């Protein structure tokens, strides 16, 4: 949940009256672009990506033009440009035109959480305009401050003094930067980065900080950002239909976090607990369809809905239904297993049988009753199964599920299909 770029960034900065570069959106008229070039001498053209994706400048995805023709050429080049960085890739949909702010000083500013200090932390340097990793450490101030008091003027002043910032930029920054704490703190942000802030001189040479690029991350668990009334499609970009459906059930009770690992996978593994989620996803690799954490003692109804959605999307292609978790502390195994077993039974009732091998590994309260329900369901549906207690190492159980999956691929699925009287086993 990130916002990058000035298109929305400038609107957010307006909330706290922090000056920002003039920006025009993808639908800007040629007259408006031309007028902007006349006012500022030149404009920057930047592609608009949904969500956050970094290192755009280095990839040459930043255009600059001094006339309308150049600006339109850059618009054409960047409007639908694709960008790959690390494991992320993004496709632009539109560009912004940003008035150039000529300045002598470029400031890097960010607010974030530091796990070293365990406090909100200001990071600032007067050597901005480049990646912070490339700036000499001695020019960077990292200053934790009290969350209850907030980032006050003295925090900024002390930080700038510590790194020997030029005296002329200190006063304007001390006046303007504390506003950004209001934005960060009151609208549910986890990070806020402005790089660069350019120090624009007025006619009398007095400097004003002007934000020229914007990046922020929002906290999914904090409703404060809803106050901003941002269009929801800004964040909807990278959720599949399946993930969207599951997300609708997200409440504070029960995690119900999912991620589609491989939509061609053959092991459907509803996983309980973040730890189990890490272990299972790591070991199953591409066999796994989803990575999930359904722990946190979900109530019956929610568990059943979650399971029903999983089955509807993935059961037909699955060789193995693999229900796995450690020895739970308070997740009621009877309730969660009953819910999943009922969902499985209803799925079979509605969509007909599908060849499946059920592997379960679990521990926790009401364990045997829960296992009993799953056993009865497998028996009723005619599915082969193995159910392990917590005295079998979880990693061994994962390996077992993988071996079963291999057997299913090598003809086991067809055997079960024949046993169930399913005429067409979906090739898996």
């Amino acid at each position: 949940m990130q916002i990058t770029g000035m298109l929305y960034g400038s609107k957010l900065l307006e909330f706290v009256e922090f000056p920002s570069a003039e920006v025009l959106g993808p639908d800007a008229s040629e007259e408006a672009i031309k007028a902007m070039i006349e006012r500022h001498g030149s404009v920057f053209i930047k592609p608009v990506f949904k969500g956050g994706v970094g290192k755009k400048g280095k990839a040459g995805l930043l255009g600059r033009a001094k006339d309308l023709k150049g600006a339109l050429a850059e618009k054409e080049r960047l409007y639908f440009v694709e960008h790959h960085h690390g494991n992320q890739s993004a496709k632009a949909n539109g560009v912004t035109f940003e008035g150039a702010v000529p300045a002598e000083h470029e400031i890097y500013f960010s607010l974030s959480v530091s796990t070293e200090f365990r406090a909100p932390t200001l990071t600032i340097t007067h050597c901005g305009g480049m990646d912070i990793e490339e700036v000499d450490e001695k020019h960077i101030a990292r200053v934790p401050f009290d969350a209850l008091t907030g980032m006050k003027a003295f925090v900024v002043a002390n930080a700038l003094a510590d790194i020997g910032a030029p005296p002329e930029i200190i006063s304007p920054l001390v006046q303007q930067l504390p506003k950004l704490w209001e934005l960060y703190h009151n609208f549910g942000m986890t990070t806020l980065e402005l790089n660069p802030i350019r120090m624009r001189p007025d006619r009398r040479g007095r400097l004003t900080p002007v934000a020229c690029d914007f990046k922020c991350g929002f906290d999914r668990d904090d409703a404060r950002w809803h106050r901003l009334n941002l269009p929801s499609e800004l964040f909807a970009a990278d959720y599949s239909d399946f993930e969207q459906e599951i997300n609708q059930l997200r409440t504070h009770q029960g995690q119900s976090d999912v991620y589609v690992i491989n939509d061609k996978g053959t092991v459907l593994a509803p996983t309980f607990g973040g730890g189990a989620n890490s272990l299972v996803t790591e070991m199953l690799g591409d066999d796994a369809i989803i990575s999930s954490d359904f722990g946190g003692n979900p109530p019956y109804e929610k568990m059943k809905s979650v399971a029903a959605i999983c089955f509807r999307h993935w059961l037909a292609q699955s060789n193995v239904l693999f229900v796995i978790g450690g020895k739970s502390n308070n997740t009621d195994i009877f309730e969660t297993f009953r819910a999943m077993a009922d969902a499985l039974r209803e799925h079979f009732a509605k969509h007909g049988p599908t060849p499946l091998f059920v592997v379960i590994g679990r521990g926790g309260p009401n364990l045997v009753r829960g296992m009993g329900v799953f056993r009865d369901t497998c028996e009723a549906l005619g599915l082969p199964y193995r159910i392990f207690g917590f005295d079998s190492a979880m990693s061994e159980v994962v390996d077992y599920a993988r071996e079963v999956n291999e057997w299913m691929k090598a003809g086991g699925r067809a055997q079960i299909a024949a046993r169930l009287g399913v005429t067409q086993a979906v090739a898996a």
Partner: protein
Amino acid sequence: MHQQGVGDFAYYVGISSLSQIATRHDRVCVLNILGGESSEVTPVSHVWSGGNVVFGTAPGKSGQVLETSLGPVPVFNSVREGLDAGHRFNCGVVYLPPTAARDGVAELIRVNPELKKIFIITEKIAVHDAREIRAMGQQAGIDIFGANCLGVADAWNEVRIGGALGGDSPSDTLKRGSIAILSNSGGFTTTIAQYLRMAGWGTTTLVSSGKDIYIHYAAPEFAFALANDARSKAAVLYCEPGGYYERDADFTKPVVACVVGRWKSRLTRAVGHAGAMAGGSDDAAAKEAWFMEKFGVDGIYTPDKPVFSAKGALVTNIAHIPAALTAVMRANATLPDFEPEGTMELKPWFGSNMGIELPAAIDLPVVQAMPPYREQIGALASQVGAVFARQNMKDISGASQMDPRTQVSSLHGVTMLQAAQNSLEANLALALLREAGGRNDRALVNIAVGAFLNLHGTPALAAADAARESGSAPNAVLAAAAAMVGPRAAEPARQVAALMIELFSRAGLRRAEDDSFDASAIEIDEATRARLIGSEADPLAGAMIEAAIARGVRSAPLGWLIRLGAHPRAEAVLAALTTTLAWGPLQRKRVSRTTVENLPWWMRLTGTLIGATAPAEQHTEQGLCGIAQTRLLGESSLTEVAATALLGRAPGSDDLFAYQTLTGLLLTNGPGAISAQGAKGAVSADGPETPSRVQLNKAMIGFLSHTGFAHGGNGFEGVAFLLERFAGHTLADPASPDHGLDLTAMATAYAREYGAERAASKEVGSAARNIPCVNHPVFKDKPVNIDPREEFVRKLFEARGEYNVFHDYYRKLVQALYDEGVTRNVFCVNVDALIATLLLKMMWPAWQAGSLAPNELETAAFTAFLHGRLIGCAAEIEDHLNRGKNMDTRTPQSQVRFVA
């Protein structure tokens, strides 16, 4: 700004040794103690810790208590109120919802000057709140654990605070030993302790740190407290990506660190535990490197390549922790705390190949589980049927639901559109046993219900007739009959059903229709035998057995009963039939034992009610409605008999299909329908928590009394409307498309008339009457509107080549209303039209012959509704008595209103 604590930290830390984290001297106050999670977990913690919870809070619930086996824990509105009452505590546990957690922390800190530690269980707390929580704790000098954690436990002190480490039986996992645990995963804190125990290592203090961005009690201060804890010889850390906590920890004792989450580098956003995913310098690879440097090792410990030093080992699989720990400790000349308690190899507790040959590698034989699970699995084998969790069932049903989008209701997952294609007997099985069953099952229902259809000479018939005579509506007539089928009449068969469940489960009966089942293992004493076998022939029993033979019924219990003696009792035969019927669903744990024990009563009740819809003169010694008694039991279907009772004549095959469709559609309309509410209220009032006290016949009276001329009898409105429209026209056979009527002209004429009438009423400011059976609040606003239920059934009849002139008229009418400008679009013909048109088509011959008065037609419409709905309500009643709580349908005082 922080208080000065112990150690050389840049922030406040108050705990100098792990032994201080959870002690027997700690006294605990739990915020939101009555919440869902706390009310389950806190009693276990309290009892295991020797009673450490002094009180809890829950706003507005002061005066309540949380029951525990050590006595009740008092609940107050607020912390201040608890302190004012004289309680003192040094530990606060926060179970509040995420948006309230920060305020709860503030309350604990500001109100109680003796506070030392806070444990936050709440997950999904906003980072915004987390940093304020951190700042408040630092300012006041309070150690905070969590959030998003499962609290802490100490195996030496036998204390756990906040959360549920060790589950519902902490001693099973937490055994005194020498290893401390710090884990980002609450679940794995317990799982690791369990794994260690199997390898001979016990535990000291276990800290579930949580995995929020702010971890308030993290690795650096854990390492410090570990150094100062004489009991702890080593520690196990379980770490996920995100945060620099481990990097800054300075360990002086051996450590096994399990770092997971390399796979997260493939993700583009957080899954599961919050925190960094990849790319940062605090991802899994970075954390692995930190630990390797600390331990002076150059690789990951695996069983194949054990890399470790005396300082520690790094693993990436929790299953390798015990072996790595043993290796590291051996290098420190230290042996495990006790003999290993087991191995971690694969041990399936349950399994089946379902007749498929598996390769040896995956064909693992089922092994005995460890105690106490072994005993539980043994007990499971003897447990028969489903056990439902009890809950408040007001406006909730486990039997029926309505899909708000399609408006189609379903009963046990079968939509009314599907049910409309089932026979009445199949739908009865569906309602009570959740499965419509097969041929054998239908035969069983037909006999079991058939035995009670003819009410000749019974008080039920006398009561029904008296009610009818006094002018009561059909529902009241049936209620009078139902009142005569009370618990006393049902008890003998119920007892036999209970006995048969016991005997045949013990004997291992899998398929009840298996005639060849060897029942020789079943032994009964003389007294039991006397309950099943009488000294002389029982005519009803004989008739049912004959009918079973005539219908070719297969039943192991019945076969066993017949072989037991010459004269089986009628209740025993009935119970044998119903137990056979229910055996599959019972084995599959779809229904409870209680339901199967109730089944004979249900059969009797259903028979009585359907029988009572036929007037007294139709019940004779020889038979019912002209159907001979032997045919009634041995041949007829329930659908046939019920249709006969309704029509007053033998139904043709078209009539039967129409009747079946009609009753199927009417089975249920979800738990919100008034009829269902009446049934549920009646169960609730009897107290379903003692299911044997629920009077099924009274519950049916509850349903019946909650039907009436507006709910159930309203099917007649459509009939009356059609009669008006067809008055003066000659119609010989409504099933013939060659009826000779110009329906379009009739419809157009009425549309004009209605349009004029409506315009006139608008003039005088009154509302025009609505045309019954057209339009629907959901299926509207399209140019041409269709009620999908009507369309489904219409196509069903079309496929059978059946025609219904009344239905055709309705379709012409909605078009004419639009064509004449009366409606803004083409209204749908709704599902009620099906009921009216089907009914009128069936009744038309009698109506034409003049043998049916308008009020009798109305009675017939109402009765058809009751036939269908009584089956749906039986499902509702059975569901509520299995799941509901005593008096759960009442409305709280706060929600009722008074109007003047």
